[in-house]
């Protein structure tokens, strides 16, 4: 077992060797995680910039800041960047990469070179997509609906599609690596029932990555081919069916929202247990709910197509199946709250973000049930109600969880503490800013304001101004952590191996961990989240 004694100049993965080459050719999962952290942070700011432009345009009813064409490109690029280059890789590729081998007690992922390859593929995909955006942009929406994308759009659809195609393989390889690692690389004694819930949820997300992503890859390839060679697979003029594109697209892209949210749920499970000092209530149910969400997620895709002209009988089936996803999701929410019940809760920043996640995810999930009901979907389809719903899940849920995880494991990743007071302020700003931005959109959508227009009737202005004001608060809430995380690298207090007094193998090695993670292979003899038997020390940091 790694000792808790930390010497000042102890060798770790950050100082074991230096130089740009030692980073770009590394096969260490921790360094690759840091590479991912830097790249997706850049993408997050770019996507955030586009979001801010959208909100600024919507400040006034008239289309005065940008033209309608530019606006179309703005929301498309915001969507493409945030979905494919931030949300999907965020928790798995950064925190998952760093933590899954540590949590299962392995020296590395099963295929370290494949892991590095996946980062290069991500970068190649990102650069290809960005090139398409810089040289003229794309205006199809992130969904690339045919036949507009294949026949009528005059923008750089092929470049963006190829970029996503390449990035898709990065995602596939990450998922493959996680599945194989969790099956084959667990330390002695680390049984499936002792596996941290973070690993369970990343496993479930990896299953979706591996099974779903190839389908979007081939679909976007067909779009590119159809555009390039004028073949007629999706073009109704040539006898093709545009709905086939939507089927294939959503076969991946609906489960993809679970790629985004499941790892976030894993983060929340870890944090809720740690800051309640309790074992996870219904551990098995939380674990299996992850798998259930992954499987059920593949059965519901056509609820995106209720008004597109699919058979009403198929729509009935898909509507019913969509309701089923609510069950495992609710199981998780109830189990988290039950875990907190009678726990000794400390209100540190990760826990504040986790509170935010649970509340906002619940709102997002429940409005999802509105949308899966056939009748109501007809009313709110393609309105701001849908925008609000998935931003509650994606930003209110996923980004909150990502921030929670970053704060929770920042001491492990860097060996430094962030400033707790500033962090609490940022958590508060994000929560307030988020709700101010997106709650008005529920009302707007219910009143019938359609998405994807750069102008709107004047009576909708009050709510839009409120939303833009909220977005400004949200932006401050995201800029703050960026500043103090960088600040902490130099000025932060030393974290020590286990600042939260948490259980789990990742806390039993030093911070930052040595290159080979553990001085000797750990042997696990205890159950997951064994906080009852952990010495009840106070969490000393940040009080």
């Amino acid at each position: 077992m790694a000792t808790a004694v930390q010497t000042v100049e102890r060798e770790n993965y950050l100082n074991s060797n230096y130089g740009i080459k030692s980073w770009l050719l590394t096969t260490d999962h921790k360094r690759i995680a840091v590479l991912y952290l830097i790249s997706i942070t850049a993408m997050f700011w770019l996507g955030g910039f586009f979001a801010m432009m959208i909100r600024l345009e919507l400040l006034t009813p008239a289309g005065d800041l940008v033209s309608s064409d530019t606006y179309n490109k703005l929301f498309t690029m915001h969507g493409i960047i945030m979905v494919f280059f931030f949300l999907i890789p965020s928790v798995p590729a950064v925190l998952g990469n760093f933590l899954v081998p540590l949590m299962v007690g392995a020296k590395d992922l099963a295929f370290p070179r494949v892991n590095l390859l996946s980062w290069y593929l991500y970068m190649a995909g990102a650069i290809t997509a960005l090139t398409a955006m810089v040289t003229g942009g794309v205006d199809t929406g992130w969904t690339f609906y045919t036949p507009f994308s294949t026949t009528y759009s005059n923008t750089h659809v092929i470049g963006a599609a190829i970029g996503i195609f390449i990035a898709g393989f990065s995602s596939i390889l990450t998922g493959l690596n996680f599945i194989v690692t969790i099956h084959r690389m667990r330390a002695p004694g680390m049984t499936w029932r002792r596996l941290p819930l973070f690993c369970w949820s990343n496993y479930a997300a990896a299953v979706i990555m591996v099974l779903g992503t190839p389908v979007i890859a081939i679909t976007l390839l067909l779009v590119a081919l159809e555009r390039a060679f004028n073949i007629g697979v999706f073009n109704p003029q040539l006898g093709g069916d545009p709905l086939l594109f939507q089927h294939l697209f959503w076969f991946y892209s609906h489960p993809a929202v679970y790629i985004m949210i499941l790892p976030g749920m894993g983060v929340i499970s870890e944090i809720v247990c740690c800051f309640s000092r309790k074992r996870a209530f219904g551990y098995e149910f939380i674990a299996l709910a992850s798998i259930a969400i992954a499987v059920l997620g593949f059965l519901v895709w056509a609820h995106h197509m209720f008004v597109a002209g699919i058979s009403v009988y198929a729509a009935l089936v898909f509507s019913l199946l969509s309701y089923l996803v609510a069950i495992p999701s609710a199981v998780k929410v109830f189990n988290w709250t039950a875990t907190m019940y009678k726990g000794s809760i400390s209100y540190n920043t990760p826990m504040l973000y986790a509170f935010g996640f649970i509340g906002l995810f619940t709102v997002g999930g429940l409005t999802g049930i509105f949308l899966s009901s056939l009748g109501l979907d007809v009313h709110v389809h393609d309105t701001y109600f849908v925008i609000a719903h998935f931003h509650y899940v994606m930003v209110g849920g996923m980004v909150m969880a990502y921030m929670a995880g970053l704060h929770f494991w920042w001491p492990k990743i860097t060996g430094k503490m962030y400033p707790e007071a500033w962090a609490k302020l940022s958590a508060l700003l994000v929560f307030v800013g988020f709700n101010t931005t997106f709650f008005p959109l529920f009302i707007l959508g219910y009143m019938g304001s359609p998405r994807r227009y750069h102008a709107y009737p004047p009576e909708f202005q009050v709510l839009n101004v409120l939303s833009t004001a909220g977005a400004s608060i949200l932006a401050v809430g995201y800029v703050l952590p960026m500043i103090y995380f960088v600040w902490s690298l130099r000025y932060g207090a030393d974290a020590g191996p286990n600042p939260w007094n948490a259980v789990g193998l990742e806390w039993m090695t030093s911070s930052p961990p040595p290159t080979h993670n553990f001085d000797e292979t750990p042997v696990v003899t205890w159950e997951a989240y064994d906080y009852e038997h952990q010495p009840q020390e106070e969490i000393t940091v940040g009080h």
Partner: protein
Amino acid sequence: MAKHAEHNEETGSVGHIAPAKLYVAIWAILMVLTLTTVLVSMVDIGPMNIVVALVIATIKGTLVVLFFMHLRYSPKLTMATVIAAVFWLFLLLSLTMTDYLTRAWSTYPGR
């Protein structure tokens, strides 16, 4: 955890070694089945042609996976992987077809 693979006593190989005769036998069956499927296609049995062809293809594919790809001698996890692939392929095809096969059931303007 990983179950121990059989060690071949003679060569010390860490994997299962199937006899060469078995491979040749499988090859012969595959060739016969290929000939069969071509011959059946010469007879007009309408839409049943493709059914017969796909059944034969599935038999051939199963033989390839079980013997050439050593699935018979592989851990259960490998079997689970194959089943997952087939199951998800089935999900994609069948749930998509629920739409296409039932579109004609209802009549509404424009259709």
